[in-house]
């Protein structure tokens, strides 16, 4: 049986994102929403330096359920979010992680459920507090039956004359699962009134984050930190919110604080490491990833990152072995594709363009939807003056990843070169939408507008 940490932020389903009733305003003011794709001013590296994910946010060092958020504009966009078994965003959260847990539990007991819930007399069990608590945990976590759990919790709270903070927290959790966030908030708040517990602060913050009120969540965590100074989980939660809001300097600050308390915290190390890499300090990033290796983290992603850091930090002896290890540890085709993609960059770095070409082709062989590889192949083709191939590759890339500015900008450049100014203009506008501060796009648009204005 797996005991999953309930506090971890969970995945928001697609339907819940598009049919959200909890938002107060249509458009949030900049800097107050977790879902708004980046405010204008990028804090930290721009998309010209750090790759951007589908939500418009920069690639983070650590993925947890829920980091892929970013409100899709239309249902169509929502459906388009990748839904392989590995990056699956469930349709609703009810069909997401919880079903997986439920299915897993069902599979481990082929003879049928351990307890038949429909035949339980919940009010009887509500009277004996210890039994009730254990029963609740079983129903809630193992059986995944929120309704019954809620009923039990309600009866038990009543039984305890509304003075037991534990039951309030459990009620809050049930309401959260059911999507009744305001009720959940109330329960957690009243639980806090009885007894300060770190978990309660965390749950409350989670509720606020889910309601897309990151600033309230932050103030809640601050309150928690006042009460429990330097508590690791609270610091982590604060840092996560900052990262989701794209405040990378604040996030790094909190992660550093976290590391002072717990210097084996994987998430903090990974995030700080990736921030250093993308701010021109690959040597420092290397140190952080080496620490992870020392701690015993041993997977494809880590070795890939080690290989990249070694290359940019000029530790030439370690590059290829790291990448080889990464390839051998890859668990699925997408990971293999990513490693080959990065190897393509290394190949470009040593000036071997044929090798780079082959690496990017291998990326595509393992993952046919790798937009970055298409783009880079197009750039290589243009160097050989194969305009038509480059064009086709760029169109594929742009279609696969409309949030990336590179294929749009490259297409605009290419079209401009061959004189097709209309396509160039359309593509340049898309590039501008993806990355408004990109200077070369602005220059190109200026030039095109002058052409159009001339009679």
């Amino acid at each position, binding site marked *: 049986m797996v005991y999953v940490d309930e506090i971890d932020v969970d995945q928001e389903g697609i339907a819940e994102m598009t049919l959200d009733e909890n938002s107060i305003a249509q458009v949030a003011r900049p800097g107050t929403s977790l879902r708004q794709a980046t405010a204008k001013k990028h804090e930290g590296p721009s998309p010209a330096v750090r790759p951007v994910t589908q939500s418009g946010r920069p690639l983070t060092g650590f993925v947890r359920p829920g980091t892929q958020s970013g409100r899709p504009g239309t249902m169509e966009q929502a459906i388009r979010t990748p839904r392989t078994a590995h990056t699956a965003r469930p349709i609703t959260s009810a069909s997401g992680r919880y079903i997986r847990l439920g299915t897993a539990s069902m599979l481990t007991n082929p003879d049928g459920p351990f307890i038949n819930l429909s035949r339980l007399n919940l009010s009887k069990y509500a009277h004996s507090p210890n039994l009730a608590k254990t029963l609740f945990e079983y129903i809630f976590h193992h059986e995944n039956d929120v309704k019954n759990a809620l009923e039990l919790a309600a009866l038990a709270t009543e039984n305890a004359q509304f003075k037991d903070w534990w039951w309030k927290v459990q009620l809050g959790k049930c309401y959260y699962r059911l999507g009744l966030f305001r009720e959940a908030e109330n329960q957690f708040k009243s639980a806090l009134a009885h007894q300060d517990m770190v978990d309660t602060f965390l749950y409350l913050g989670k509720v606020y984050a889910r309601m897309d009120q990151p600033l309230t969540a932050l103030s809640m965590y601050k309150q928690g930190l006042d009460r429990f100074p330097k508590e690791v989980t609270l610091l982590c939660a604060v840092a996560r919110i900052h990262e989701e809001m794209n405040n990378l300097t604040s996030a790094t600050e909190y992660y550093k604080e976290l590391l002072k308390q717990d210097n084996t915290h994987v998430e903090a190390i990974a995030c700080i490491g990736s921030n250093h890499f993308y701010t021109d300090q690959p040597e420092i990033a290397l140190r952080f990833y080496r620490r992870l290796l020392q701690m015993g983290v041993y997977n494809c992603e880590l070795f890939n990152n080690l290989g990249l850091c070694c290359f940019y930090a000029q530790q030439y002896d370690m590059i290829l072995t790291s990448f080889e290890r990464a390839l051998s540890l890859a668990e699925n085709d997408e990971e293999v594709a990513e490693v080959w993609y990065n190897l393509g960059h290394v190949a470009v*770095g040593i000036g*071997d363009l044929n090798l780079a070409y082959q690496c990017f082709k291998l990326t595509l062989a393992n993952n046919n939807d790798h937009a970055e590889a298409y783009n880079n192949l197009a750039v290589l083709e243009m160097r050989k003056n194969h305009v038509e191939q480059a064009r086709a590759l760029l169109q594929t890339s742009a279609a696969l990843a409309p949030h990336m500015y590179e294929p749009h900008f490259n297409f605009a450049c290419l079209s401009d070169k061959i004189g097709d100014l209309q396509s160039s203009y359309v593509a340049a506008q898309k590039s501008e939408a993806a990355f408004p501060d990109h200077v070369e796009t602005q220059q190109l648009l200026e030039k095109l507008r002058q052409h159009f204005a001339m009679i």
Partner: protein
Amino acid sequence: MAEDAVAAVPTEPTTLRKPRIKKAPDLPILERRNWLIHLHYVRKDYEACKALIKEQLQATEGVCEYAVYVQALILRLEGKIQESLELFQTCAILNPTSPDNLKQVARSLFLLGKHRAAVEVYNEAARLNNKDWEICHNLGVCYLYLKDLSKSKEQLNLALQLHRQELSTMTLGKIHLMEGDTEGAIQTYLQALQLSPESTELLTTLGLVYLQNGLFQKAFEYLGNALTYDPSNYKGILAAGCMMQSHGDYDVALSKYRVAASSVPESSPLWNNIGMCFYGKKKYVAAISCLKRALYLSPFDWRVLYNLGLVHLSMQQYASAFHFLSAAISLHHGNATLYMLLAVALTYLEDTENAKSSYQQAASLDQCVNMMLLSIIYYLYLT
């Protein structure tokens, strides 16, 4: 009455027209609102203009030529060239004697990249009006895209004869540079300068041409002028900074680059030059971080790789130097100094054989006598 109105349409639709006020309100006149449409267009009031045009077109069932014309112009400003082309074609059908309509059709074809078709239509327009410099100029540009440089020059010169202006001169100058005729280009640009002495574009371009041909005095003069008129002009700053660096004025260059870096933060050439300023001031660590940033932004630039190799050689980090220099050579074969530097790195890495062949390569490549002599000396020394 309606026919009178149509016959009275001038061939230059951009002139202001007086409305013909009729006593009897039940006789609509096709061109009644043209003046208002023109007014809105000139004021860049495109929304009002479009609304008015729509009204007019409905009232006249789509045959009001001027309204269609302006509509097409607005569409082009919005970047919808295909639709604009169709509307201009309609205009040409409505009034086949107007060279303007044909010009616009041709221009739309040009903007869509259909250069051959554009040339044909321009030729037709030229037959209707052979004193129009714009037709000649645009023909020149079309031939340029079609890679027919001689025809292009011919047309551009014609355009300049009809009417001297900056646009044709810039294009002509570009063609001279493409053919390698530096003198011709300089002459052309100087002539253009007489017409518009304050054009930063011209001054910078001329300065660059002088710079690339080693005429530093003149280059400095023109680039300095360009920067006086527009101190934040990125092209000018880059070129001027470059010149100052090559004369050892690293601090001045850096201060200029700082201005540029605030407006263009992710420019690989800028960071490359900044890095080399630091190298000149012997601040090797700063140089390396700037150069690495330049490399990250533009991985195919052999010059950044060259510089990185050079800086690492100065810091006696021969393995890194070798890495960067060999990458540079893979990307760009023709530079003798690259081979020389590679040979230096190889020497210190104790690979004498390859160092010798590298010096040989350097000697065979370079026409510059000093370099060749140096390479030969080192080669003999190693043997």
